[in-house]
């Protein structure tokens, strides 16, 4: 039961949350997680000549390996009432981590296998999503898993 104040929508709000005014779509290309980053560090320590290029890659990757999608609050789309995350290309056994930003902050990590997608999350107001992958096989600057994200607002 909706006992928490923030959970209490008016009847109009609750029904409005179930219908959509517009949609947007984008692709998120995952580039590997912290395991991949650690391998870059190993490369740095064993090959000093490549330090500058490796460092450049490190600082352009997200610190936690996640790649964020569009912030639908900042973009003007408004929060997504439903999000469908489709697997576009990638390895079926790769572990994908997903986080949803709700009301300005990211929540729990959702660990799933690549072949479990597509995943639809609806009936909730989502500001943004971010994804990472366990598969760092594409190496520095490479792309391992690509997702198409369709959001309804």
């Amino acid at each position: 039961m909706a006992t928490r104040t923030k959970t209490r929508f008016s009847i109009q709000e609750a029904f409005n949350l179930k219908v959509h005014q517009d949609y947007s779509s984008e692709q998120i290309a995952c580039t590997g997680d912290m395991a991949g980053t650690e391998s870059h560090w190993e490369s740095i320590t064993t090959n000093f000549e490549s330090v500058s290029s490796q460092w450049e890659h490190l600082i352009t990757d997200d610190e936690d390996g996640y790649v964020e999608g569009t912030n639908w609050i900042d973009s003007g789309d408004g929060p997504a009432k439903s999000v469908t995350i489709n697997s576009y290309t990638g390895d079926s056994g790769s572990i994908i981590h997903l986080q949803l930003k709700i009301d300005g902050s990211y929540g729990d990590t959702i660990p799933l296998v690549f072949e479990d997608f597509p995943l639809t999350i609806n009936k909730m107001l989502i500001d943004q999503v971010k994804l990472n992958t366990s598969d760092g096989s594409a190496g520095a600057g490479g792309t391992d898993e690509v997702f198409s994200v369709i959001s309804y607002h």
Partner: protein
Amino acid sequence: MATNPLNKFTVAESSNLQVYENYSSEQITCATTYVEGTNWISSGDGPAKEILIVPYSTNDATDVISLQLKIGGSYGDEIKLLYNDYPLTISGLITDQIKMKSDEGTDEIFTILSFH
């Protein structure tokens, strides 16, 4: 039929039950005895209005997975399904907690995605 007083919702409550404020996620590694997930009442998440149970590990399709839902403070009937029957979505119900077990031991892992 909504004969249990706890199941009698107002229109606003039943409408609210269909939309969510937040989510949480965890993994349950099954054993031959029941393993409980987070108690969403105690954790402050509030009861789950929808639960998605997704198999995470690769296992035998015919492993028997038993699932129980805690509603209103007590667990209900045991739901027996095969590993291959998952993922399973349970919605339209206010769930405090879930617990799972497997006839195969500790090699089944599930990702539990709950909406509150």
